[in-house]
């Protein structure tokens, strides 16, 4: 029998992840033992402190990354090969944590609901029953959302940094499970919220099954879960190509589901509409970032040698996703559904970048996609934060017709929303323009010019419905007894300010963040 050697775990380099997951467990304990009064405040402060600490730790890790000999990237493979702490990972960790801090601030908002959060008082109560009314009368609320969102964030940190498929699968489950739950906790419109949670859960479980079957087939092909070993197996062409192709396809299904690419997008509008709006913003920014990070890592690192097999598939999916997202968004009358289709269209633009060059002198696909995700995340969280503010007596006024003339009654809020719409449309001087520019140029450099032409056309279609909202807000008459704009607490207003400032700065002065994305370099094997 050989001697057992304790594994080395690089605790310092993994500290952001460990802080977030540890804080989540402590959060559950707080939830168990704190009295109900004051629990909300303590949970908010604790969650934010943990996230800021993780962000600082990320900065410290980023400063200490070493060059890898004989490769272009910086970083190391930590925890016995389970995690790659490299430039892209650390960049995504930083951006994810910033998004998470903003999202948690939206989660913490209580003023616009009149002293309670946007989450159900008692999720188990039947909608419309006395039990539910009593729970909301007494101001009961689920403060479990804070530990749950920390779990999801922990999974999202792990997901794009996983260096083997098994860790990646576990990370996928850690990030998904709390999200399924959070989707079902909206305070208003309980039924569609529950429907969203159910739909997301069932389809998500289904896609996870595809993912794990793909992992099994790829393991059969390469004899290893580790991305570097799979890469070597692909290069040496060791096993049966059928196994590799089927495995790659199934893994792609699982990941494309999470980024809500067509034809795996069917859940997106329902879930985005039904989930509590802060959760929707969080999902749109953070899940997309984490899932794209994982998609890029698996396909560039593990399957890079087989790119002529998967590239046509990505082309088709990208084209389909852009077209469905942009065209179907035209017909939407609910603002949250419209933003959901917009997020599908943006997933398509990101896939165009993914199909581009991943080496070479200019900005690579990876770097452009990272920049796009950072820019898009700020705008999308901001846009959903505005949706939180525009309210009818029964909750958020999400029907598009209710937003008519908002520019005349509340010019500031309407102006901010219009600005985010312009950013989504990719108008110059917003972050949307610079990010689209980088992604499309990376794709062009990679020879994906037909896809870029299609993407530009679809951007024009998408711009039509973004501008339509602006026209509706500023150039039509206000509806009689239209929605009121709530005055939010410091949480939402500062989150909105951050989102607006980031969208402006990334549009006018994209240099520093673009440099940061470029310094992130390449994946380390």
């Amino acid at each position, binding site marked *: *029998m*050989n001697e*057992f*050697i*304790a*594994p080395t*775990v690089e605790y310092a380099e*993994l500290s952001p992840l460990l802080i977030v*997951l540890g804080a*989540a*467990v402590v959060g*559950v304990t707080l939830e168990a033992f704190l*009295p*109900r*009064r*004051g*629990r*909300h405040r303590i949970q908010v402060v604790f969650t934010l402190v943990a996230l800021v600490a993780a962000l600082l730790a990320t900065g410290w890790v980023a400063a200490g990354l070493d060059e890898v000999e004989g490769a272009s990237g910086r970083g190391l493979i930590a*925890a*016995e*090969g*389970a*995690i790659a702490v490299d430039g892209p990972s650390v960049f995504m960790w930083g951006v994810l944590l910033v998004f998470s801090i903003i999202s948690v601030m939206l989660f913490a908002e209580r003023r616009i609901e009149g*002293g*309670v959060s946007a989450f159900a008082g*008692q*999720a*188990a109560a039947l909608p419309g029953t006395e039990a539910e009314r009593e*729970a909301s009368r*007494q*101001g*009961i609320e*689920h403060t*479990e959302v804070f*530990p*749950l969102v920390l*779990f999801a964030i*922990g999974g999202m940190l*792990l997901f794009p940094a996983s260096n083997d498929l*098994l*860790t990646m699968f*576990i*990370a996928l*489950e*850690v990030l998904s*499970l709390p999200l*399924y*739950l959070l989707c*079902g*906790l909206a305070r208003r419109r309980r039924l569609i919220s529950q429907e969203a949670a159910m739909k997301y859960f069932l389809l998500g479980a289904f896609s996870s099954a595809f993912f794990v079957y793909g992992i099994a*087939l790829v393991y*059969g*092909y390469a*004899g*290893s879960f580790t991305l570097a070993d799979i890469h070597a197996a692909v290069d040496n062409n060791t*096993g*049966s190509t*059928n*196994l590799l192709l*089927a495995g790659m396809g199934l893994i792609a299904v699982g990941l494309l589901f999470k980024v809500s690419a067509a034809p795996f997008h069917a859940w997106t509008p329902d879930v985005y509409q039904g989930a509590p709006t802060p959760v929707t913003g969080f999902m749109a920014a953070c899940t997309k970032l984490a899932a794209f990070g994982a998609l890029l890592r698996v396909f560039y690192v593990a399957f890079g040698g087989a790119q002529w097999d998967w590239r046509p598939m990505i082309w088709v999916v990208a084209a389909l996703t852009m077209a469905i997202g942009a065209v179907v968004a035209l017909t939407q009358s609910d603002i949250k559904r419209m933003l959901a289709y917009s997020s599908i269209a943006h997933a398509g633009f990101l896939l165009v970048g993914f199909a581009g060059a991943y080496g070479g002198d200019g900005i690579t696909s990876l770097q452009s996609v990272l920049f796009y995700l950072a820019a898009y995340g700020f705008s999308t969280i901001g846009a959903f934060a505005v949706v939180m503010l525009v309210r009818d007596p029964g909750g958020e006024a999400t029907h598009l017709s209710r937003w008519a003339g908002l520019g005349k009654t509340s010019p500031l809020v309407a102006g901010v929303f219009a600005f985010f719409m312009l950013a989504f449309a990719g108008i110059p001087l917003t972050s949307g323009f610079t990010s689209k520019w980088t992604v499309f140029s990376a794709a062009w450099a990679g020879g994906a010019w037909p896809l870029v032409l299609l993407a530009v056309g679809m951007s024009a279609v998408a711009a039509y419905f973004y501008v339509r909202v602006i026209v509706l807000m500023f150039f039509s008459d206000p509806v009689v007894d239209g929605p009121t704009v709530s005055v939010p607490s410091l949480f939402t207003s500062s989150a909105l300010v951050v989102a607006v400032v980031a969208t402006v700065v990334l549009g006018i002065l994209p240099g520093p963040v673009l440099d940061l994305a470029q310094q992130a370099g390449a994946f380390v094997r």
Partner: protein
Amino acid sequence: MTPELVVFWLLSVLTVASAVMVVSTPHVVHAALWLVVTLGAVAGCFLVLTAEFVAWVQVLIYVGAVVVLLLFALMLTRSPASTTGATSRNRPVAAFAGFSTFGVLAVVLTSGFRGIVLDLDSQPDQLGGAAPPERIGDTRSVGEAIFTHWVLAFEVLSVILLAALIGAIVVSGRVRDRDRQEAAAGGGS
């Protein structure tokens, strides 16, 4: 034909036959019980394939826990006596989906693994470097692999279980009396 091969074939036939029963019986509770047979036979297959630990996981988690949860889910949503609902008009579509999945997987797996023989006596270890070759698949080598190569994944797994339990309480729980009293005493906090 070695005795192992005979047992494996018998178990395979049992797996497939009971799986067909799972999808063809009109009574949902019977379907769940047939699932026990299917999963148990799969556990037997794992055992014959020398994956001893996986076989016991299959018995404890799938036959033990998952089927129980499945039965509970059935009884939470409908009366156990009801026989309707296990059939629907989608049956031909479902059958088509099932058969085409079977076809694709059969082609992929047989073309991928045909003729591959794992020599258990000289196979280099693939579980992460801890186990000598004579112990592939047994519980000790799995234990050592979990605590070396997969230690991070193992710890993160506990977090999934924790989140699942919180989810169960949030989705099904009632506000406790203690919370109610506090709420009545203090109003909104």
